[in-house]
């Protein structure tokens, strides 16, 4: 029993909270700008490497580099929108989707040029897991989960209780009416990129600190993040959280019955099944 918790459930929840951070951005971008952002994984990669850059050049601790990398990626997300997505906003959405595919390749290449293609780590050395009533966890895993959950709680409170949070929900719900209320759509779009970029960077950082950094890390996680967003219900932040945790746990548990090479394929199977049988997802999201 403890083996199940220690080897599958704990890693599944850690991985799931990372997927959730990415899926929230994907679901917000879809809800407000109505397109699938394929550069989200590589945005996460860039965020992870920005943190790495800060640890090596300024010899910051990785945890001190995290907020700076989040802020940097958030600003970069706004810049990318201005440069590549903004002027496509009134054209068919497939153009923006394709543009995001291009941005994904571009971001990855930038990372490869600046940091090389070899895997890297934030800190070297082995960290032993500690036992908490039989549950074996590493401090960094606790920190990952706690920070991810903390960020999500702050975001949900922001969306529920603040003027601009409500404006974001209003625009996701009914953009024409939001405009009639005098809500500045451009400002909501910038705010959405700010949040999505910061959370993507956090996702990339947590992936990197729990395993290693490589330039394909974000792209590899993208499918699971999309599966999480769709499973939870597109446009639903709480759905992205639940979807992310579920996908993470299911991926880890799949190793019990499938060869571990198929771990990634489970997200794909879930994605296809959801689209076929319950396209609105768990939380009644928008149908793609």
């Amino acid at each position, binding site marked *: 029993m403890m083996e199940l918790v220690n080897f599958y459930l704990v890693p599944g929840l850690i991985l799931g909270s990372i997927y959730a951070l990415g899926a929230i951005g994907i679901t917000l971008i879809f809800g407000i700008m109505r397109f699938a952002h394929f550069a989200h994984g590589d945005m996460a990669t860039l965020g992870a490497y920005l943190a790495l850059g800060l640890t090596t050049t300024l010899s910051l601790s990785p945890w001190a580099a995290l907020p700076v990398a989040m802020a940097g990626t958030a600003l970069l997300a706004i810049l990318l929108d201005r440069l590549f997505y903004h002027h496509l906003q009134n054209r068919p959405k497939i153009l923006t989707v394709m543009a995001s595919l291009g941005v994904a390749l571009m971001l990855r290449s930038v990372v490869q040029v600046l940091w090389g293609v070899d895997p890297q780590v934030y800190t070297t050395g082995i960290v032993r897991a500690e036992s908490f009533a039989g549950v074996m966890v590493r401090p960094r895993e606790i920190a990952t989960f706690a920070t991810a959950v903390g960020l999500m709680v702050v975001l949900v409170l922001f969306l529920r209780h603040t*003027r601009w949070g*409500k404006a974001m929900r209003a625009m*996701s719900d*009914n953009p024409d*009416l*939001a405009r009639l*209320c*005098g*809500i500045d759509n451009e400002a909501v779009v910038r705010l959405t990129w700010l949040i999505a970029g910061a959370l993507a960077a956090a996702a990339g950082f947590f992936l990197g600190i729990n395993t290693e950094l490589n330039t394909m890390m974000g792209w590899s996680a993208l499918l699971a993040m999309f599966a999480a967003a769709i499973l939870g219900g597109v446009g639903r932040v709480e759905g992205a959280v639940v979807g992310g945790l579920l996908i993470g746990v299911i991926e880890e548990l799949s190793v019990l019955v499938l060869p571990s090479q198929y771990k990634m394929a489970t997200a794909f199977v879930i994605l296809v099944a959801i689209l076929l049988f319950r396209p609105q997802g768990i939380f009644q999201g928008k149908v793609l």
Partner: protein
Amino acid sequence: MNPPPLPNSPTVAKAHQPLLIMHEVRGGYGDADILHGVSLTVNPQEIVVIVGPNGAGKSTAMKAVFGLVKVRSGTILLAGEEITGWRPDAIVRRGVSFVPQVRNVFAEMTVQENLEMGAFLSRSVREEEFERIYALFPDLKAKRHALAGSLSGGQRQMVAIGRALMLQPKLLLLDEPTAGLSPKYMEQIFQICRNVRDTGVAILLVEQHAKQALAFCDRGYVLATGTNRYEGTGQQLLNDPEIAQMFLGG
């Protein structure tokens, strides 16, 4: 106790000056014009209705006031200030609110949040503002924490109108507020319009139910093929045999 006006909002129009003047407005959505010279006037605290056959440009004329239509020529004056070609958010700040015919609530937000979004431009909303709206729509108070999408058609329409009234507009534009509602709710919406007018708001509305609308309005305009056909008080228009034959089905 009136709350302070919004930033930029001018003081209430002088007594005898019309609140809204549309003069010879031509325009449409794309290249083809839908309006071929529409003129109308709304005085303060007056209910004015636009009726006419399908495709007459009724809704388009109203949307032109709110900056949602490309106006090619003609002028639109609000309290003496020209607002032709302004963006909707600038027009909202001048004290005009618009309730579209469909998709006019935030379905996934609560009634209270819908009202809050109506007051988005005023930054902070005071409790009295909500109470003012709930006094007009007592049914909504009990449902204030329900999602707007879960309400009946009539209640949704009340949320939509309440949302539009949050900024204390001088002019309320309603696009077919009774479409799809039962006669009971239609009467209720009309009664609400009278109550709203009596709080000092002018209302311009487009109606499919021409007879009932002309019977309840102060003045009416009959549009056909994008131009003015007739105008007068509701009773005058109702009693005109020519109009009855052309538009009201005898």
